[in-house]
């Protein structure tokens, strides 16, 4: 089982859309996929039309009173299940602080379902905290959407540095960046796309465009490829998954 976390210190960069659409793409290609919505805002849970409620809340899960298996919900799609968000997860840092091995907690919880899934997507809230450090420990790779702005690249580099400089937190982690919310009508985006690739040649080739289809996910409450198959945005996520899958 591979654990992939969609993560960025910044908010509003397309993390949830990435997690939901890549999970869907992987599932239709035959992977057994679990999405864990760690963001208390519950956007991924909303897209899958699932009630954002976990019996006993995050406390029951972190303390071990409840196992992950009991709270997993099937999505509307084959091979794709979801651990829904819960508002109590806003206090995940506090809950982890109270546990014995806070950094290892998420990994421990995921281990119990490792035989059932090929891939887990962790949809993470923006921040660097104890919770995100636990994510870094549990994940095999961070999928980092980067908006083509100088500031975004700076944040990406901050993240890279953190991973490099904190081996006691991060054991083995592949940081995979890709451009997100790219508006090719904007000259600045076009120019930065070229310039920033020179700075960070490791960024993936696939680019997620800023298209209304992706915004309409909230109206349809479905992954893009489910309500708009074959469209540019659906093709973009498909290409992104192909590239990530090859890299994995």
């Amino acid at each position, binding site marked *: 089982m591979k654990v992939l976390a969609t993560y960025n210190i910044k908010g509003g960069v397309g993390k949830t859309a990435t997690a939901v659409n890549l999970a869907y793409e992987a599932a*239709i*290609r*035959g*992977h*057994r996929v679990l999405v864990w919505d760690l963001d208390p805002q519950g956007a991924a849970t909303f897209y*899958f*039309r*699932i*009630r954002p409620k976990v019996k006993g809340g995050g406390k029951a899960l972190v303390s071990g009173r409840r196992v992950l298996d009991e*709270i*997993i*919900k*099937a999505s*509307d799609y*084959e*091979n794709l*299940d979801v651990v829904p968000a819960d508002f109590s997860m806003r206090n995940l840092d506090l809950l982890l602080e109270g546990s014995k091995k806070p950094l290892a907690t998420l990994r421990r919880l995921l281990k119990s379902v490792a035989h*059932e899934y*090929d891939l887990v997507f962790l949809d993470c809230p923006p921040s660097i905290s104890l919770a995100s450090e636990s994510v870094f420990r549990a994940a095999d790779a961070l999928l980092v959407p980067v908006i083509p702005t100088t500031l975004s690249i700076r944040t990406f580099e901050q993240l890279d540095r953190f991973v490099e400089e904190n081996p006691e937190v991060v054991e083995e982690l592949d940081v995979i960046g890709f451009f997100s919310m790219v508006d090719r009508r904007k000259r600045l985006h076009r120019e930065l796309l070229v310039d920033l690739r020179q700075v960070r040649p490791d960024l993936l080739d696939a680019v997620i465009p800023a298209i209304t289809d992706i915004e309409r996910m909230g109206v349809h*409450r479905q992954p893009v490829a489910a309500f708009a198959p074959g469209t540019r945005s659906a093709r973009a996520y498909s290409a992104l998954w192909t590239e990530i899958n090859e890299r994995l």
Partner: protein
Amino acid sequence: MSEVHRFVVTGAGDPSAVLAGLAERAGLRVVSSTVVERTFLDTADGRLDAAGIVLELRRPLEGGASPTLVWVEAERLVATAPLDAPTAPRFASDLPPWPGAPHLASLMEMRALVPGPVTRSRLTTLAALDREEKTTARVVVDASALPDGTELPVLLEVHQLRGYQREAEKLEKLLVARLALEPTTTTAAANARRLAGAPAFLRSKLRLSLDPTAVAADAWRDVLRELTAAMTANFAGTLADTDSEFLHDFRVAVRRTRSVLQEGKGVLPPGARAHFRAGFKWLGDITTPQRDADVHLLDLPGLVQLLPADRVDALEPLHELLVERQRACHEQLVGDLRSWRRARLGQEWAAFLDGDGPWPPDSLDGDGGHPDGPPGADAPDASRPAIVVAAARIRKAHRRLVRDGRAIHAGSPATALHDLRKDAKRLRYLLECFGSLFPTGDVSVAVKPLKALQDTLGTFQDTEVQAHALEGFGDELVQRGAGAPTLLALGAVIEHVSARGAAARRQYAERFGAFDSRAVRGAYERLSDDAEAAT
């Protein structure tokens, strides 16, 4: 990931219409309703079926969409893939790039997928929705018919979705109350096979249950008939070269037949026995060149893996040579199998196996004469109890193997091990063909260490033959102008193969020791005791 409860709709009428009527009450919505032509795929020996897998090719009959390959396992839709080509994949290497494809490949191994029964199916999927319009359960109605119009039982499946069991149970109760439903575990694929009268899946393991009190002639005849059925079942696939296992299983049946004839001294009339021994030796011999060619091709990927990645391409000329050779051998084999000689052997053999009890004396002796005398007059063991005759043959073969095996030492020539392999095969075939006369426990204790010993002897001989053949291919490649990289790669492969053979040789003492243990010898002795007790 969902759990599925399947039912047969036993009442008259269209269940989809009834479901449509229930839609409001049950919160059901039709998600899709398509008419497709389904072709169920499996290997000729039903490996997917045995693993609980249904693989089917679906061609939409409306809308002109491309065909889709659908993989269902343990009642769960594992994966689907649109196919670019109009035909179904044949070998594991043709499967779509599914993450789970290696699992299917490990089940299929070298076997080809062969198209099974075809149905025309209307598949209707309904979803039970909650207030958020989230699917909480699915109902799939499968109304299928064979091309000749024969209708399959209409199946209705309730798919319980994880985390929504309560909702699914409620829906299931409602459906059971409103529709005439009978729980079933039979799949549409199994129904289609049954109603289409599809032949049973092939099996290479003998499934004989011989009567220990029967006379030897009848037991021998039963075994030979079973082996003939195996040859017949694999004949068409061998001619078509559907996959290499057809020829392999055909040859195994021929070899077992030869062995049973050899052990039939005193049971079969001597003239007929000699005649058919020669006939089946010829039949085995004509299949050998293609089997050798098949084995070289099957082994090649494993040999290539022994090389460093940058030298893999260097063996491509060898691959081309092997493919060419295999095709030529197959052409030759098809000619031989369609020959008058083969046909006559088949006819004579069928006539010989007809009837029951001991055979009339030498109805097919060397001089073509038909001496008078009661049945079994020239076969003194034919009327003895089968278990007694079989036990005596097993005892003799076992003693011989033990004697010859003990004589082998570190300095023995390779030919001594090759001869020992023949002894081991003889004993193994006896146990496989006549084992059902004896209590199961003793037979399995006798077979297990024998099998392990055969594996070692087989690896030793096969690697020797393989290394020798590869050297021969090297000469041929030189004549064809192959470059130094190819010859160097071939040399490296030969070295690996020889090392594997040497390892098998070192393993011999341990494997033979396990076979020659007191416990195993005891099991062989008990087979004789069993024979005495039975009489």
